[in-house]
């Protein structure tokens, strides 16, 4: 089976400090659903940053969609990033754009015509329950509403990989369940999902998920006891 992402002995160091991630090796396959857990400061966000190509590793190799992602030229980066949906922990919504325009942003960047994006954006707004607030700016939305907009923005382009950093951190349990169902629906359509979370209860919400656990920057306990028995995760180390 062709992998979508392959990490081999990856290390990440910020500046001259000690390594935030060390010897991380794993393979992600198309259509799989992964949870990434670990204590605060374990390196989850750093690992996700490598996954959504915000950083390049200090060592090791990363292959993405069959290409070497470490030496990827700047000109080719946007093309790869358009295949990856990201839900940032701090949402990173564009403050001067409405909820509707924020959700439409990835499609506009990809050059989709206005007439072709109005329908999907409306559908997405309905789905996250913010149709009435489509014209609201992020500053006027609650934390949970902003998070929903961020998720809608990440999934609207039907990415091949969806990377979500604590996507349910600011929403109520009911909304959290609905968002996870959206992720599961996307997963069934073939999108590889990676969700970083502290919330171990979420893991039981979705069938057939696999778990990765980071401990002090090292990938450990890949078949861990949080899920019993987990599907075998394809890991190199």
């Amino acid at each position, binding site marked *: 089976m062709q992998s979508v992402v392959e990490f081999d002995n990856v290390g990440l160091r910020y500046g001259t400090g000690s390594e935030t991630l060390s010897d991380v090796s794993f393979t992600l396959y198309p259509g799989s659903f992964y949870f990434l857990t670990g204590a605060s400061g374990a390196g989850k966000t750093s690992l996700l940053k490598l996954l959504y190509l*915000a*950083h390049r590793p200090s060592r090791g190799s990363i292959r993405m969609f069959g290409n070497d992602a470490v030496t990827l030229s*700047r000109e080719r980066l946007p093309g790869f990033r358009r295949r990856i949906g990201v839900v940032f922990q701090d949402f990173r919504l564009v403050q001067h754009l409405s909820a509707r325009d924020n959700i439409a942003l990835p499609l506009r960047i990809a050059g989709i015509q206005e007439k072709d994006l109005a329908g999907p954006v409306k559908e997405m707004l309905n789905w996250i329950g913010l149709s009435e607030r489509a014209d609201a700016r992020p500053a006027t939305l609650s934390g949970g509403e902003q998070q929903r907009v961020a998720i809608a923005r990440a999934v609207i382009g039907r990415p091949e990989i969806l990377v979500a950093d604590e996507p349910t951190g600011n929403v109520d349990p009911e909304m959290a369940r609905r968002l996870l169902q959206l992720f599961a629906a996307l997963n069934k359509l073939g999108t590889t999902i990676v969700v970083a979370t502290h919330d171990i209860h979420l893991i039981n919400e979705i069938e057939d998920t696999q778990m990765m656990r980071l401990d002090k920057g090292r990938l450990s306990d890949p078949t861990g006891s949080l899920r019993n028995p987990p599907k075998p995760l394809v890991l190199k180390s």
Partner: protein
Amino acid sequence: MLLDFALPEHERKLIPEGRVSGSMPWVIAIMTFLTVLAASAGLIMLNATQQGSDDIARQVTVQIVEPDPAARNAQRDRLAEMLKRDDGVSQAEIVPDAEIRELLIPWLGEDIEEANIPVPSLIDVTLRESADAAKLDALAAKIRPISPSAKLDSQANWIAPFFALMNSLLMLTGGILLLLLLATSATVMLAVRSALNTHKETLGIMHMLGGTDVQAARLFQRRMALDALLGAVVGFVLAAVIIWILSFQFSAAGSGLLTGASMPWYGWIIIALIPLGVMGLAMLIARRTALSALRNIT
């Protein structure tokens, strides 16, 4: 690049457009105002120099220095007749004695006639073409058999230092235009860098969502182009009004040296293109600055 300028509205919204509120259009207005004035001064000087040098280079004065008034007048009349028939001469006019006396009175006093001073006779000659040394020699050779003491005086000789000054001023104007060009470029560069800094967060998000450097640069390019066009038009209009008023004053002065000191027709076209040039320059500098700076944003 012009197609980049016409961005769809939704793409324009990515960077909020706070024109007029910023100082950039007003700085550009001042730069354009100075550029248009400097360019106009250069064009007027160029026109005056070209026109003046053409006219003056064709002007020659024949001076007949003969103590005997009767012989002097006879030589003058024969020379005038000969010059009028010459193919290389378009006009030859005897300067009336009264006019010569008028010219000399400030130096020799009212009693010039009583003093019995031998005043030379003068013939103003306009050649068909500019007088170079060879032409003057040929003309002198024709004059000498009629009046051996006659002297040819080309007006180009005494006016040469004036035209040398005009050429120096033209070069100075060129230098000033170059400096204004550099200052305008630097202004745009600083404005783009400042705008990039302000919108760093939005640009970072765009990049993470797969936006390219060119897409982001286009936004700044468009914004700078609009700011520059607005400022350039304001600067141009103010400068054009001043040039128009000065043109009237030059015409009213009517001095011989200022005869050609007016804006040539093509000059108005050139200065009208300056605002468009400023806009084009702003777009180019904005694009290059943005593309260069965006490489440092992930």
